[in-house]
């Protein structure tokens, strides 16, 4: 096995290591999730300082170590620095990064996950209004779940497989079961976690589309927050994780 190797990766997490190094968790296209040491990255004037920042995409030259690999060279390809200028954007980006950290595999190519995640960050970064961030973010959660093969069932009952048609009457009448894996017919024996309106169900179904239809984009902020809560509960249950960033979502979007 070669002692050095090249990879293109995005920094998902960083923490101090020793006096002046940084320990990075990087999602690479070629090798999936890798934990690498950025030597001297915390030293004043270090060339790795900026390149080891959160959400920076680098072309990396890495060397294999006994326990951890080390960065020999890094060349920045793209950065998402402007995500930091807005608490809502940073929270959404870190929320998505938490899901990626959980679902990414090590020692395996993760080209699709890398491309989806960087695309989501680009979209989050370019949104100007706070209300425009939520649809991109909620669709992002869905896209990551779908990529992992965990997308919730939204057209047929997760238990009986019958087509679910929302009742004509307004109100929250579509039962959703996190444990069963999606929407369920009223009356089936499954623990119901949420009740959705027909409009919210329509929006959830539209999340699979490449571009959200205009009527879905017009959904209220509260409706998007409901969808986020549904997908959050679903993600936490099926990926067996706790999303730390979720605690700040309500605060960011209720300002």
């Amino acid at each position: 096995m070669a002692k050095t190797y090249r990879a293109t990766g995005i920094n998902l997490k960083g923490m101090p290591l020793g006096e002046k190094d940084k320990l990075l968790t990087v999602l690479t296209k070629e090798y999936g999730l890798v934990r690498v040491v950025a030597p001297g990255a915390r030293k004043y004037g270090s060339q790795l300082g900026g390149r080891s920042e959160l959400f920076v995409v680098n072309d990396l030259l890495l060397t294999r170590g006994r326990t951890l690999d080390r960065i020999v060279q890094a060349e920045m390809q793209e950065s998402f620095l402007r995500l930091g200028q807005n608490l809502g954007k940073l929270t959404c980006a870190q929320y998505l990064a938490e899901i990626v950290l959980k679902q990414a595999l090590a020692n395996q190519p993760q080209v699709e996950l890398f491309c989806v995640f960087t695309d989501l960050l680009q979209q989050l970064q370019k949104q100007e209004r706070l209300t425009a961030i939520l649809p991109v973010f909620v669709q992002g959660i869905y896209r990551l779940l779908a990529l992992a093969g965990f997308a919730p069932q939204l057209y047929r009952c997760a238990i009986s497989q019958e087509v679910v048609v929302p009742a004509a009457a307004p109100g929250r009448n579509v039962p959703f079961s996190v444990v069963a894996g999606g929407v369920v017919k009223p009356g089936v024996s499954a623990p119901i976690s949420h009740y959705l309106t027909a409009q919210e169900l329509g929006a959830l179904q539209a999340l699979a589309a490449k571009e959200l239809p205009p009527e879905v984009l017009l959904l209220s902020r509260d409706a998007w927050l409901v969808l986020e809560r549904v997908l959050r509960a679903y993600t936490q249950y099926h990926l067996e994780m706790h999303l730390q960033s979720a605690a700040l979502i309500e605060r960011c979007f209720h300002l």
Partner: protein
Amino acid sequence: MYTPPLARLIEQLQRLPGIGPKSAQRLALYLLSRPREEVTALAHAILDCKEQVGHCQVCGYLSVDPICEICRNPDRDDSTICVVCDSRDVIALEKTREYWGKYHVLGGVISPMQGIGPDQLNIPTLVQRVVKGGVKEVILAINPTVEGETTTFYVGKLLKEFTKVTRIAFGIPIGGDLEYADEMTLIKAIEGRQELQ
């Protein structure tokens, strides 16, 4: 391999930042070789520090008294507050001997991934200090990381309506070389360019 008290000491030393198993063993054996008085003094210093040092009620900096020396000092400029994320940053700025205002220590930066939001930081007391009046300028001296940037913008937005808010410049270090600067630093240096006086 080690006798139980020595193993316990090595285990405790290993918990310190930057101390690995080898360093912990070296330190433990060194401490064993020192006279009893020296080791007792070290143990007392650690305990005294833990028991006596707290945070200043005004600025959040480390202090033995309820109000720290910097906040009590009448010679310091009350109208300028420099906001930093950690007490270590106060020490670094004090070493410059150029800043004569007061400080405010936030106690960290906003990091949603680590569950640290604005409520977990020392922000409300800063807002109170500024709202009370008499503050002409707040200087935000928070590390230029993505999370530091969010904290800077968040705090700046809160305080902007009450006083002038500035932030420290960042870019090429003195004695540095453009050729070797990373792209992020160069972007920031160009964004923060100044007209020649």
